[in-house]
């Protein structure tokens, strides 16, 4: 029996244990049938699946574009495509991966599916808005496809003025698609913030929910504050092209560096939008597979907010050689160094969690460990790029390309893969082949490093990014990188294979295959549409593995039940039970 501290407001509630069935006959997937029930769903879990399918297609197409880039770079001159096409392909690869995969996917798939489950709610605060978010995302993706099919865009994903103003390419449809998708991002962030504030189960205080919830909360704050600035920036580019307003175009007396300020004010925090949920996933994975309480819960939670905040103050580190004043460059460089601190705090806390833990090297844990290694490399090289004099040499070289792939792919995509493998049994009620998953993980880990580590060397030796031709001396490293991309691709094909097999013929998953303690594992696999058949009541933190599972299955007593153990729990602020107490 948990007793609260003397100075905290507590409310006594009658609870009893509810055991959800391991498998639900009627679950969120089969409960309502027909295309219309999916297309007009308000169920956060179905919406999560729709995001999954769409973003998987985007990742696949953008991945093919990457393979094409690497194939073209096999030889110094033209290999398979011409220079103009090459520019269009890397622009599309970057735009799709950033705006249509990394930014929307983790909040869209795992955030949507898990947040209500992890906080014991029936759905997000605004389910219809959630569906709208998905359709806005889909519209953004369709605009991109239209752009590919009609003309292509060759400005790079950064759309720098003045080229984005002058280029004859399809800048306007592309930026419109991103604008629409940005709206999706804003509405999703809005939904999650209100959900986390308002819909938590009784007893679930801010210190008790899983770190994944903190991750989504941090990301949502960034989405709200940063995305509108991108929106106005893209709108201004369109205005510049159509009406020649002269804000960014130097030919008219505008300032192209101002474009960069506005663009990076969003796009730097955007990288934190991309990675912060990953931090949350990794914390949950490490705690679960070390079977040990997360070390320094509040340090990890607050450092998430610190990164979200500091991430807004470093954007100029993309502009050290753009003509920015020395004063600004120094300030940006200093804050860029500082942002390594909360990140480092996280990594040390995760390692401390593992120390003397009971470690199980299941596939999600393999991904979590890979994350720590790969993201550390990415993070260190980021700090190196933040040093002014070093950046003069390395800006716009392959060093930068390697850095951001290590953090975005080696960090976020790896974390996403870990999360998918962790929550797959809950989402689909099926297990996957552990052996094939290990094979795939190995191919991806090796393939990733073979692809991108040589790029650090290429960059340091002076190979510029986005170049179609290159000097002969760089060829062997380019070829090594290309071979790596094939190994990576193979790893993903293996993954597609065993995951599809799991859906069709996989062994039925138990409700809690990993012996975890957070609320999503206390319901069936897959969950029923209403998530829980009772109102969950939380009395312990999310990583209390020494407590029996029965203490995590408590719920408010329905009117038609009598008796049940009485527990004294802390009712959180905003909890409806406070009003009734």
């Amino acid at each position: 029996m948990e007793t609260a501290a003397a100075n905290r407001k507590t409310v006594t509630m009658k609870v009893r244990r509810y055991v959800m069935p391991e498998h639900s006959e009627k679950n969120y997937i089969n409960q309502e049938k027909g295309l219309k029930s999916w297309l007009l769903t308000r169920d956060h879990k179905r919406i999560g699946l729709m995001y999954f399918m769409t973003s998987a297609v985007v990742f696949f197409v953008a991945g093919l574009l990457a393979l094409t880039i690497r194939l073209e770079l096999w030889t110094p001159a033209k290999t398979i495509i011409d220079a103009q096409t090459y520019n269009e392909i890397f622009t599309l690869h970057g735009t799709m991966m950033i705006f249509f995969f990394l930014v929307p996917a983790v909040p869209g798939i795992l955030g949507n599916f898990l947040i209500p489950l992890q906080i014991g709610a029936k759905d997000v605060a605004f389910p219809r808005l959630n569906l709208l978010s998905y359709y806005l995302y889909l519209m953004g993706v369709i605009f991109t496809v239209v752009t590919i099919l009609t003309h292509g865009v060759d400005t790079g994903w950064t759309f720098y003025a003045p080229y984005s103003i002058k280029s004859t390419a399809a800048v306007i449809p592309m930026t419109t698609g991103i604008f629409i998708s940005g709206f999706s991002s804003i509405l999703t962030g809005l939904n999650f913030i209100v959900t986390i504030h308002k819909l938590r189960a009784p007893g679930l205080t801010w210190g008790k929910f899983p770190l994944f919830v903190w991750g989504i909360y941090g990301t949502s704050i960034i989405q709200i504050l940063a995305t509108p600035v991108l929106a106005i920036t893209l709108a201004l580019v369109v205005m510049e092209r159509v009406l020649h307003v002269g804000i960014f175009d130097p030919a008219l007396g505008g300032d192209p560096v101002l474009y960069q300020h506005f663009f990076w004010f969003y796009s730097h925090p955007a990288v934190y939008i991309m990675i912060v949920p990953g931090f949350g996933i990794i914390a949950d994975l490490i705690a679960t597979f070390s079977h040990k309480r997360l070390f320094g819960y509040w340090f990890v939670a607050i450092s998430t907010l610190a990164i979200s905040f500091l991430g807004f103050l470093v954007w100029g580190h993309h502009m050290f050689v753009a003509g920015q004043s020395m004063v600004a460059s120094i300030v940006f460089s200093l804050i860029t160094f500082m942002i390594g601190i909360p990140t480092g705090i996280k990594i040390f806390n995760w390692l401390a969690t593992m120390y003397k833990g009971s470690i199980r090297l299941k596939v999600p844990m393999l991904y979590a460990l890979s994350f720590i290694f790969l993201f550390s490399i990415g993070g260190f090289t980021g700090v190196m790029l933040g040093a002014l004099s070093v950046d003069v040499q390395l800006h716009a070289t392959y060093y930068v390309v390697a850095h951001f792939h290590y953090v975005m792919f080696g960090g976020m995509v790896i974390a996403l893969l870990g999360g998918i493998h962790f929550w797959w049994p809950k989402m689909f009620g099926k297990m996957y082949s552990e052996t094939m998953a290990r094979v795939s993980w190995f191919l991806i880990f090796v393939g990733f490093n073979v692809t991108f580590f040589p790029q650090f060397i290429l960059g340091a030796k002076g190979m510029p990014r986005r170049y179609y031709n290159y000097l002969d001396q760089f060829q062997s490293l380019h070829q090594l990188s290309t071979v790596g991309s094939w190994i990576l691709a193979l790893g993903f094909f293996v993954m597609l294979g065993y995951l599809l097999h799991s859906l069709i013929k996989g062994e039925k998953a138990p409700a809690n295959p990993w012996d975890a303690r957070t609320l999503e594992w206390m319901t069936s696999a897959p969950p029923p549409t209403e998530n829980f058949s009772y109102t969950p009541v939380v009395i312990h933190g999310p990583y209390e593995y020494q407590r029996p599972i029965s203490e995590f299955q408590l719920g408010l007593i329905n009117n038609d039940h009598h008796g049940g153990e009485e527990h004294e729990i802390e009712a959180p602020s905003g909890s409806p039970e406070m009003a009734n107490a």
Partner: protein
Amino acid sequence: MEAQGHHITSVKTLLTVATALIILTIITVIFGYLNFPPPYNVIAAIGIAVVKASLVAMFFMNLYWDKKFNALILVISIIFLSALVGITMLDTMFRHAIIPTFTAG
């Protein structure tokens, strides 16, 4: 004055605030003709605008009686907007030339 926990602002309060806003608007326009020396012209004009905006936020948008968190949302958005403007100006105000040019050689 309460219905189901919602605060109902009285008509009198609303009319008073509206009157204040109109008076402040008239003052702003008059200031336009008075030609104060910079920077006082900017401080006066923006200062009055801030007072007006605060009146609207507190009494028309009910922040005076509302949960503090909603006011915090407003304040945070303004802080981040200030960061955008302020830090960008660390660049724009300290350049050698307004639009950077690079000479050959």
